[in-house]
């Protein structure tokens, strides 16, 4: 049970690499929030061990990685993680399609918080870009869910 733990940091580091992977400009605003998806998965799967603190730490690293205000992604991801933690019993029992919709809602709130904080700091951003990431995250959730569940079962984490 303890020896398979390394897949969790590995999955999150992979998600962070996907966050900074160069993409064409046209797809810039459609990048799924890989780190948020991975955090949500681990919080749903192992709510006793992983919760808001893990999400917050991941967010802090994301801030450094993306050069944003220190604490911006952290607070948004901690809040998203908190909601995923609250809803983990429902989310687990949803079929995958319904799960995707719930995840889209979580990611939407995550981006709303990020944009809101941008607005407070005074960085001008357009609200049109608010819709891309939740949509693409929704489409990619079944894949993330499938891959991570498979890894978790192989590592016998429960």
């Amino acid at each position, binding site marked *: 049970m303890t020896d398979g733990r390394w897949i969790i940091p590995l999955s999150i*580091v992979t998600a*962070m*690499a996907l*966050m*900074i*992977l*160069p*993409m064409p400009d046209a797809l*810039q*605003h459609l*990048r799924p929030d890989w780190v948020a998806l991975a955090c949500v998965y681990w919080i749903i799967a*192992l*709510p*006793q061990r992983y*919760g*808001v*603190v893990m999400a*917050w730490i991941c967010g*802090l*690293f994301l801030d*450094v*990685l*993306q*050069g*944003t*205000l*220190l*604490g*911006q992604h*952290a*607070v948004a991801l*901690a*809040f998203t993680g*908190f909601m995923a*933690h*609250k809803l983990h*019993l429902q989310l687990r029992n949803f079929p995958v399609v319904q799960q995707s919709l719930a995840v889209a809602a979580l990611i939407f709130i995550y981006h709303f918080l990020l944009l809101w*904080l*941008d607005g407070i*700091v005074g*960085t*001008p*951003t357009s609200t049109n*870009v608010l819709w891309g990431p939740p949509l693409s995250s929704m489409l990619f959730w079944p894949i993330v869910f499938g891959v991570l569940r498979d890894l978790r079962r192989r590592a016998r984490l*429960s």
Partner: protein
Amino acid sequence: MGPTRDSDAKPLFQQTASPGLRVVILLIVSVTMMTLDHRFHHLDSLRRAMSVLVHPLRVLVDLPVRASRALSESLTERSQLLQDNSELRAQHLTDSQAIQRMAAIEAENARLRALLQSSAPVADRALVASILSVDLDPFRHRVVLTRGTREGVFSGQPIIDDHGVLGQVDHPGYLSADALLITDPDHAIPVVVNRNGLRTIAVGTGEIDRLELPFLTNRADVREGDLLVTSGLGGVFPAGYPVAVITRVARDPGRQFASVSARPTAALDHVREVLLLFPDTGSDDQVEEQLATEGDDGD
């Protein structure tokens, strides 16, 4: 149900803070951090330490791009290389001819400035850095450079490429540095119109090929095609580096200010190798010395 029962068996987890309390604590911590970071820059050391941890990941992501470039370079045909070589030789010849004249003009300029008792511009030291191909926050225009405080990079250091000013260093880390491009909406650069010496400020728009000059009045003497160079005011960018070319001047008589756009001369979106400038800090002392000696002469 397995995990739920599992947690019931471990009272330790029940006694720790509830997720609700934790999220409130983290919220307060985050808001404090953001305030400290935004207003006072007190967290630069934390960011620097974490950027060392994050650096390997950035290099790893950059690796495939770098490898494919190296591969395409090594597979370039011999004839192509020979052609490039001859073109570069010709370019070098014309450049060095311009530099020869430049040396004479610089000496003349220094003499004239000495007569006017104004400070003489001094040559800047430069360090070559390359840009890692990683994507940062899509709303900002930022890049990651492969040089850090280890090589003496500092916050606010100007960055140029072979065509003009690119931006400035924002968060220097130990091994890498985050830089802000001149087109970032948060960035403004003091410039002067090269044709007539009109001073103004060029502000980033968030579009990679456009700067705005919002502080020019309707009667200001600017035209399409005018070159903007750094004015040296503000103390960040040294004077005389090209910044942008004016592309559009729209004068609306109903408004006090003209709407002026400019296109950066530097290749902001596809440059790989850049120069980090170390403006010579000794210049002020030199000026003071010069003035002091001239004062002595006057007495």
